[in-house]
């Protein structure tokens, strides 16, 4: 295509079986009015991998997934799905992928079976209706009109359509939003089963637990960029641990050992550290020595949640980690 100069190495290879399932290179998506929802994403998903895009609302997850699904052309960079351009070569890509949008749409006056039948006519190698419905737990609901289904059942039907053609790559945009706890667990089980069969899954979610339990690898997006990526363990390990406590009113934060890079908000102190054990020992030693009582002492290792909240709290234009506002204690 047009970007031979940019990626000569991959561009000249025939889309071999070895091509990654999904490959994004400096992917950008701008909307009218100059707003750029996706600002240069580069990542790839290997075959058979479950990859989660995490982010707050407005981080650009859906905009990214839509580019990979071939619903829109990127305004910059390239997208490859199974070695092909999902937008320009949609005829090659679509029969091999399954898509579940964040908000699915089915005609409210059709029944479940009629919807599957319609979808089957548009899907190569469609499974039998009964099998598709059984996979998502909708057996027995064939004759029910869409408008009479619960929100969770609609999501399941949507999933059934996405799975209808036994896709090699499955895109799930917030698949469990709106599901109850049981429905969510069922969907997780289904995704795991699909992965075991070799299906590549790219899912977006704002549930950390979902990303942590399902994903082989994940990327956290913020304001159109990937700020952190790796396996859940890697992402967590890159984050500092955190110690929080409150000092008595008569002890100024400045009296804390300088080595502990503490940040104070009034009497509330927060320490971020990659050496939790050492710093905690220093802190407790200092407190005992000076007879200081640490209120609400809380020390915890890094978690994905910490990483996520840290990123989500970043301000409008800077990509620097937000420090608790205040004066650093000396």
């Amino acid at each position, binding site marked *: 295509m047009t970007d031979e100069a940019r990626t000569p190495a991959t561009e000249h290879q025939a889309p071999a079986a070895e091509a990654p399932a999904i490959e994004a290179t400096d992917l950008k998506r701008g909307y009218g009015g100059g707003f750029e929802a996706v600002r240069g994403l580069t990542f790839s998903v290997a075959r058979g991998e479950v990859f989660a895009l995490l982010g707050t609302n407005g981080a650009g997850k859906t905009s990214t997934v839509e580019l990979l699904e071939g619903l829109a052309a990127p305004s910059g960079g390239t997208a490859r799905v199974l070695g092909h351009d999902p937008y320009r070569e949609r005829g090659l890509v679509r029969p091999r992928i399954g898509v579940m949008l964040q908000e699915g749409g089915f005609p409210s006056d059709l029944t479940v079976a009629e919807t599957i039948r319609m979808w089957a006519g548009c899907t190569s190698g*469609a499974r039998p209706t009964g099998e598709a419905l059984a996979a998502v737990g909708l057996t027995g609901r064939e004759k029910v009109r869409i408008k009479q289904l619960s929100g969770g059942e609609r999501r399941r039907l949507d999933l059934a359509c996405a799975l209808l053609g036994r896709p090699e790559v499955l895109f799930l945009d917030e698949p469990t939003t709106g599901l109850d706890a049981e429905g969510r667990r069922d969907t997780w089980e289904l995704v795991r089963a699909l992965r075991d069969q070799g299906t590549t899954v790219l899912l977006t979610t704002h549930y950390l637990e979902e990303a942590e339990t399902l994903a082989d690898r994940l990327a956290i997006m913020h304001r159109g960029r990937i700020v952190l990526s790796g396996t859940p363990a890697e992402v967590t390990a890159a984050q500092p641990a955190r110690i929080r406590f409150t000092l008595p009113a008569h002890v100024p934060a400045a009296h804390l050992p300088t080595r502990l890079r503490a940040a104070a908000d009034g009497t509330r102190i927060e320490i971020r550290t990659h050496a939790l054990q050492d710093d905690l020992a220093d802190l407790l030693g200092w407190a005992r020595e000076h007879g200081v009582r640490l209120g609400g002492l809380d020390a915890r290792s890094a978690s994905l949640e910490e990483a996520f909240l840290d990123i989500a709290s970043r301000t409008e234009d800077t990509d620097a980690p937000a420090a608790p506002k205040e004066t650093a204690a000396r």
Partner: protein
Amino acid sequence: MSTQKQTHTDTHTPARTGGAAGAGRASTTATRLAALGRAELTLLGRNRNNLFIAVLMPLLMIFLMRTSLKGVDEATLGIPLSAATVIGGTGTVLLLVVYMSLTSSLVARREELVLKRLRTGEATDAEILAGSALPGTAIALAQCAILTVGGFTLLNADAPTRPDLLILGMLGMIALLVGLAAVTTSITRGVESAGLTTLPLFLVSAFGSGLFVPRDALPGLAADLSDLLPLSGVMEFVRAGWLGTAQSGSLLTAALNTVAWAVLTGWAVRRWFRWEPRR
């Protein structure tokens, strides 16, 4: 999901009747059009408003038109009353059943996010539009066939002199109306307003393109201007098909009009058609 494992006794019935479902074969333009058209037909049957527009309105309109034309003498009309009825009736049927009902069903599918969902599948944009238009087109063609036979037997109209031109005109009109319906959806916010947004084309065509009033009956300047209207070209072919009396050059003008409107409509669809609701 394991929670609702049930027996497979009745699960294979839908698959067997579903044709493409379960066969495990590749989807083609034909299977996709059939699947989309079938779903749309089912939906038409379940929507009382659209059913009324597609089935009863044409009858009502043709009856009304004939009643009003009866008061006009044939010299003013320019063509026999029976011919005016079948020619105008053909146009009216296509406009109501193809254009008006397609506009409202496309808007309904768009607002329910069905169009967006369909676009994630293997069907191309053109197939989605064509599939949606299939049931209306089939019903309209059946009604035109009834009108033709009825005009021949009940109204003593002559048989179409140039069936080739008639068919060409009808096919051209259907294609143009599908495009115009797609364009109209971009100015239609919801299904409720489809009645209003389809009205301008309906009125302009009824009085300017020979649906209700034969264009032969229009005064000179109005007749010349009416050459420019979107359906005047295809209606000229329909008229020529029935009467076989195309004036010299008029078919050329009609063809030019049709091509121009087709290009304009195609451009407008690409430019303005929205596949998902405005947020």
